[in-house]
């Protein structure tokens, strides 16, 4: 079992415009109102990079920035774990289209934005961070993989870790074979020591075998959870919003899962 403290949270999804604005929706005190994800380019980026930022970079920087503001930490001080099932799906579609027809002119920006760690690269430039950064994928379980990796960095390396999860839809024809329903991002600032800013402790345990997965009560939020890999974080965010001791389970790969206990500070 690994114990981590949550110091800051960022959230951006359809009808979920920021953690503070979404808490009451996540606890069920306010009704969920569907609305397109309010994507915007972060003012953290220099103008040139801002122009080149696709959806994942917008998602990742917006939620990362919100989480750091809440934690009151400088962005350059934390290690980062970025996790996503797909990376920049619009860009991958465009490159495949360009390569299927002559002339095969892939622009330099398209190419360097096609790496899975593009969001991490832009973040480190914007945040001025020389700390370790990793970029992960575990298909539908990408969020859980990111949480597990972040937990080991916190516990073993005593690092302050910003975990950033994001995903967005593919255009057709890839959308039909990988139907991610919308754009969604979330960020958590995780620490080993409790501080005055700590919101909750989370105890994370990797377990073999299947367990009933925690779902969202609200039907629209449950559709969101199932429709976007990064939104598998929602039950954890709902537990954090509820501010009471809660036990949840999130599926990992076939045949294993994470048990997570949330205890408010």
């Amino acid at each position, binding site marked *: 079992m690994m114990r981590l403290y949550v110091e800051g949270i960022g959230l951006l999804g359809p009808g979920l415009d920021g953690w503070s604005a979404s808490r009451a929706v996540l606890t069920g005190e306010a009704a969920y109102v569907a609305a397109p994800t309010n994507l915007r380019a972060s003012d953290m980026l220099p103008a040139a990079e801002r122009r080149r930022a696709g959806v994942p970079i917008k998602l990742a920087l917006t939620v990362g920035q919100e989480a750091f503001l809440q934690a009151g930490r400088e962005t350059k001080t934390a290690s980062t774990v970025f996790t996503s099932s797909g990376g920049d799906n619009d860009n991958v579609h465009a490159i495949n289209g360009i390569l299927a027809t002559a002339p095969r002119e892939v*622009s330099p920006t398209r190419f360097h934005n096609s*790496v899975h*760690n593009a969001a991490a690269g832009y973040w480190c*430039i914007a*945040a001025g961070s020389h700390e370790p950064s990793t970029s992960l994928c*575990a298909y539908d379980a990408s969020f859980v993989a990111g949480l597990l990796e972040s937990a080991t960095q916190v516990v*073993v390396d005593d690092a302050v870790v910003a975990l950033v999860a994001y995903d967005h839809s593919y255009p057709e024809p890839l959308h039909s074979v990988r139907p991610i329903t919308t754009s969604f991002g979330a960020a958590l600032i995780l620490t080993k020591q409790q501080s005055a800013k700590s919101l909750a402790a989370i105890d994370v345990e990797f377990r073999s075998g299947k367990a009933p997965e925690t779902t969202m009560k609200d039907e629209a939020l449950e559709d969101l959870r199932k429709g976007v890999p990064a939104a598998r974080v929602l039950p954890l965010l709902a537990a954090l919003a509820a501010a009471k001791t809660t036990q949840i389970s999130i599926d990992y*790969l076939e045949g294993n899962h994470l048990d997570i206990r949330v205890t408010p500070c």
Partner: protein
Amino acid sequence: MEALQARQSGLVPCVFEDVDLETYIAKVGMLDSFRVRSDLSAYDCRNNRLAQLCLEQDGFVEATEAARKKYGAARIGVFMGTSTSGILQTELAYRHLDPQTGALPPDFHYAETQNSYSLAGFVSNYLGLTGPSFVVSSACSSSAKVFANALRMMEAGVCDAAVIGGVDSLCLSTLYGFNSLGLVSRFPCRPYDAERDGISVGEGGGFVLIERATEAKAADPMFLLGVGESSDAYHMSTPHPEGLGAILAMRRALDAAGLQAGDIDYINLHGTATKSNDASEGKAVADVFGGKVPCSSTKGWTGHLLGAAGITEAIIAMLAVEHGFIPGSVNTQQLDAAIAIDYRIENGAGKIRRVLSNSFGFGGSNCSLVLGRKA
């Protein structure tokens, strides 16, 4: 090992699919006719074929099987690095979209080929492992960083051993992408040469089974002594000109190993043969190590294996320790006088106890490994 000693490079003029670039590549010829194990046929793509071919070398499957009996399938993690996974499958599929509907061909398997996780899913299934698993995709540092993931997972008690590695295979995205940046050489790549003018793209892979140091049974076992990770925070596709991130990664790796610069007997450089990488890395190595540690880039043999560069060069570095062998640098003719390190063109021999291996990627993602013997 024979190819290293015989200075036999894998680089050949580019004949791959219908690519019309004048360059050299390292290509694994038998992949075109190879198929993955029949029960895993949904995973069949160039990248996973190469993965299976690598897994079947050097008694690796048998070693993993022994570890599985010892620890149990759920206690062995699988952490893989890849940059482009099975994207070639999608590139080819986009040429065969349904003319009426625009749909992908019906035999296209997204999750098992294009998705970055495909490689770790395939390796887990092939080896029958059910421990924690993910893919690290941080461009050319990917399969160096998995050493750090395995180390942390074992220290945290999440698993007892791990299969780590990386595979990247030829695809059009990479060849045309690097070409657009003006980073592809028309000649076989010449790392650290004064006239170097770019990379040669290659395909390859490698795997390492890693367990806790306390489990070591060999007389003089091979250890992962330290890992250092850092970020440039400078530019997406150009390294920091003074090698700032590289310096941090190397210093952190030495600190993690509890070693001084003088304790390292050989450095396997990232050495891509681009103007900017070799200049920046050379400055960083000179800053941390001075000019006394033998260094080389082995990319003249392998080409740039991108997401598989970290693991293959870590394996070459461990071969250097095992055989007391200092690889030189094939294709390099005239050293760059502006780079003040002990760069070796010719192969050599000596007592090699501890080695450092560098891997740096797009997005300013840096990782250095220290491998070798204790004391």
